[in-house]
């Protein structure tokens, strides 16, 4: 939106965005199309696109401005048509938003989500050679805006597609909280007997270098061809367009703000590496699709939103626990230091977390402990302080990531009673806890 100065000028000459105008001042004459203001612009500067393609910012008060031509209305581009091939499996692509669907308007630079998610297919025609893809636009949200309501909607949509005969499901999703979604879906889609693949992109698909193309190709291969019966994330394995990794949904984590290979398995190996061509190489253990079995998929979309994730830091105030208790929270996951510590015997006695944690647990809250190291397993025995925390009833969450522990607790409280939830928190449900920490799972 332009400021008042520019808006009223455009109004006075009856010019709108995309109309051609002429700016003249002495010998200088410029002609071009009116561009919309981006929010980054000085709002009193008019953006004009010259015929060379360059945009320029002009203070229109220095020029005489005339409208010379109304905008030509653009014709709709015909959508790509994909005919159904009986030989190929059916795969559903559920579109939820994020960078993978961000389409730039090349003329104005405005970024918007595709009104037709088929646009995604058009950009990657090779996926139509692996599967009959049906696109289901479920929502269009940047992932940082999502939470448990969306997770339930996605789970329901996945179940519906699978029950209607889809061999596998791809979910196009923003990357910021994709690992929260993948973990939650792993719990909500109980008894899953098909591949469910979340994918996204770190470079928007309007640029030729986008990672979206290979991510979609590899995800389609997993959904259409693999025998994996789990929820996972399929994105770049390295910075190169060589292969994607399919990472278990409860073990994945976004580890880089901007790189293509941001998703890494934590305390786990990728289930599979998928080459650019779609060839799948299995690299870890996984639950396999059971042939001939009647669908046993059980949707468990309950979720208790009264759970919180708290990071412990030096000098942190444990009274934050009281805040949540007073707000009626039912569970807290702590992101402790090292093996699962909080301050217990600090110089300032009032900074000890122990009485607050005990108080919370005595009041019926579930308190789980994870580590801000992310890699490795928490432990209840090595140090006295660990034993003290454990003795007041903190549940040590083994090798789970803090984020997975959080959504697991929300899901447990939403579907089971508190006692059951407490017991199940450090028991494996969907691959989130492994009894062995394999040597070669650090920084991979």
């Amino acid at each position: 939106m332009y400021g008042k100065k520019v808006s009223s000028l455009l109004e006075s000459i009856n010019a709108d965005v995309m109309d051609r105008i002429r700016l003249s001042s002495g010998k200088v004459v410029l002609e071009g199309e009116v561009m919309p203001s981006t929010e980054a612009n000085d709002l009193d500067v008019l953006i004009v696109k010259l015929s060379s393609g360059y945009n320029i910012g002009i203070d229109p008060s220095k020029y005489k401005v005339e409208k010379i031509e109304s905008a030509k209305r653009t014709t709709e581009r015909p959508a790509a048509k994909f005919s159904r091939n009986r030989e190929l499996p059916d795969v559903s692509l559920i579109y939820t938003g994020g960078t993978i669907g961000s389409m730039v308007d090349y003329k104005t630079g405005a970024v918007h989500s595709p009104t037709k998610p088929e646009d995604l297919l058009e950009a990657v025609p090779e996926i139509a050679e692996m599967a009959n893809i049906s696109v289901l636009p479920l929502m269009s949200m940047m992932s940082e805006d999502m939470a448990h309501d969306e997770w339930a909607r996605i789970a329901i949509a996945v179940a519906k597609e699978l029950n209607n005969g889809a061999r596998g499901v791809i979910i196009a999703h923003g990357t910021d909280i994709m690992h929260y979604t993948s973990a939650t879906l792993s719990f909500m889609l109980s008894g899953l007997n098909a591949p469910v693949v979340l994918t996204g992109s770190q470079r928007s698909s309007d640029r030729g270098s986008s990672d979206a193309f290979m991510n979609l190709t590899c995800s389609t291969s997993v959904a259409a061809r693999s025998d994996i019966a789990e929820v996972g994330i399929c994105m770049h394995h390295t910075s190169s367009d060589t292969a994607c990794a399919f990472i278990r949904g409860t073990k994945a984590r976004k580890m880089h703000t901007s790189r293509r290979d941001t998703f890494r398995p934590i305390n786990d190996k990728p289930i599979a590496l998928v080459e650019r061509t779609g060839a799948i190489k299995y690299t870890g253990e996984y639950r396999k699709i059971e042939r001939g079995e009647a669908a046993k998929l059980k949707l468990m979309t309950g979720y208790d939103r009264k759970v919180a994730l708290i990071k412990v830091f030096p000098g942190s105030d444990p009274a934050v626990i009281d805040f949540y208790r007073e707000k009626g929270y039912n569970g807290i996951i702590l992101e402790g230091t090292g093996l699962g510590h909080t301050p217990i015997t600090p110089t300032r006695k009032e900074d000890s977390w122990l009485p607050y944690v005990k108080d919370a647990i005595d009041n019926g809250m579930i308190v789980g402990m994870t580590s801000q190291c992310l890699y490795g397993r928490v432990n209840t025995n090595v140090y006295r302080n660990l034993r003290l925390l454990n003795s007041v009833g903190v549940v040590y969450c083994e090798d789970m990531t803090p984020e997975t522990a959080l959504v697991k607790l929300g899901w447990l409280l939403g579907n089971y009673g508190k006692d059951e939830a407490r017991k199940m928190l450090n028991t494996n449900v969907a691959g989130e806890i492994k009894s062995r920490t394999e040597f070669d799972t650090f920084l991979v």
Partner: protein
Amino acid sequence: MDEDYYRKLGFRCGLEIHQRLDTGEKLFCACSTEQDSNSIGKVYRMQRAVAGELGAIDRAARFEQGKKRRFEYNLYESSTCLVDADEEPPHELNNDALRTVLSLASAMGMNVMDEIEPMRKNVADGSDTSAFQRTMLVGFDGSITVNGRKVGIPSVCLEEESCGIEKDYGEEIAYNVDRLGIPLIEIATSADIASPQMAKDVALHIGMLLRLTGKVKRGLGTIRQDVNVSIAGGARVEIKGLQDVSMLNRFVENEVRRQKELADIAKLLARSKAMVGKAVDVTEIFEGTKAELIRKKLERGGRAIAFSLSGFAGLLGREINPNRRLGSEISDYAKTAGAGGIIHSDEDMGKYGLSREELGSLKKRLGMKDGDSFILVAEKAGIAERTIEMARERAQRAIEGVPKETRVAVNDESCTSRFTRPLPGGARMYPETDVRPISIDKKMLDEAAESAPDIEKEGRMLKAQLGDDRTVELLMRSPRLQLYRAITRRKGMDCRLVANILLQKFTELSRNGFAMDNISDEKLIDIFAAYSEDKITKQAIDELLKAASKESSLKIDGAIRALGLGRITGKELSTLVSRFKKEEKTSDVGQLKKAIMSKHRLNIDGEELNNLLA
């Protein structure tokens, strides 16, 4: 040929000059802009054409996409970060680069935007890891005066340098990412350049202006000229990447000749109602052939495909530029599909080992009549088809006239060029939303006016230092002007000596194979300082220059000692003279001087010796 000749041809010519800036950091990140040889690894990327404005994929982008190439990028320690690897959004615009482009714009009397809008220009040949180049229009509607004539400067842009090609494997290209993102100024002239010689003069003039900013890089490839040329009946052709400005006029002359010849050929083809035949698979004709080139391809499952050209007889082999024929033009197009080359009937069939029977069958199969020609390709399946399609397209265009295209300069004696891709359309630019627009205020413009390079002022200053007009002129045109200014900024420097060494000695030593661009500015300053402080003689400067060109880590003081170049002066020289007088048993000035200098030529200043002996 004079300007009149070119005017009659309907000659139009404009230049685009690209100059790398010598800023400490890159345009949109904090990486070094220096050459970097510490490779830290590679990444491999695929790029594809994406739908452009109004859904249309830019013509040049689609053309490159048709080639389906995988790109390899070499990453470097100090000159590549995640921004260059297309793994992190760009940082803020480099201020030094902005200031430099603003002073240049001021020197050319340009109007500067109130707000500069960074754009993305789609690039499909893989030379940008992001598949686009960041670029921004800074000023418009300026002019320069060259030899008393005004030349319009419609635009000056600030943009990112692309990657350098390390190796072109045909189906894959390896790029070096160290260069990517170095600030680049692009100056475009209007198309009113009247002759090839004027094109060269304009390029030299702009080069001079750029160097006067004191902020440009020197050395091979740091300045590049692109030339746009057309004549009446021809078409706009862009020749990219000319490195040696002294050859620019010859490139333009050759392009004019090429367009004239092609326009002539088109007329002849029209008269003979020329036609391009359909592609025909002729693999079976060549099964078991003795023509090795074809046999090898077919044995590996390749295909032989051909088409006829009616009415082209003799024209494929007609020379249109030194050693370039219409056949070479078609071959250049065809090769972009990945083939090694094509065979055409105006070539000597004997050199391929094709038998008379095979040629007979081929002509029959293609339905050729007398006076018809053919083009044949044997290649891997897929590549063969694409190659033939490209060749047919170019042959068809020959009937229509001169195709609009982008060509690349062949930087050798021939001063010719080769086809690289069709001219890009206008649909390849959109806003760079990851960078904020840059507001330009009055203070910035005032500073720019203050620091604007001024050729006349510079000329007067140099005249005062050097006296001689010819040296001033040569220095103003030299890429080492900036260096001259840096050296002579120090007190006590002998300006004339510095100028002569930078101009003549550098050229002479370069010609003799010394890598003079290897010598850093600091090192040169050290050498001249050693001279002005009487540590070495004039003659020793040569020896130090040679040594420094061979070893970039050379320390000048150490080298003076190691090479025995220390000056013998004052008392030491008097003692030496006395010794020689005794040894030579003579006091004849001429004899003594000869004897002393034959042993200590590099260490003794002739004038000082003369004074002593006199």
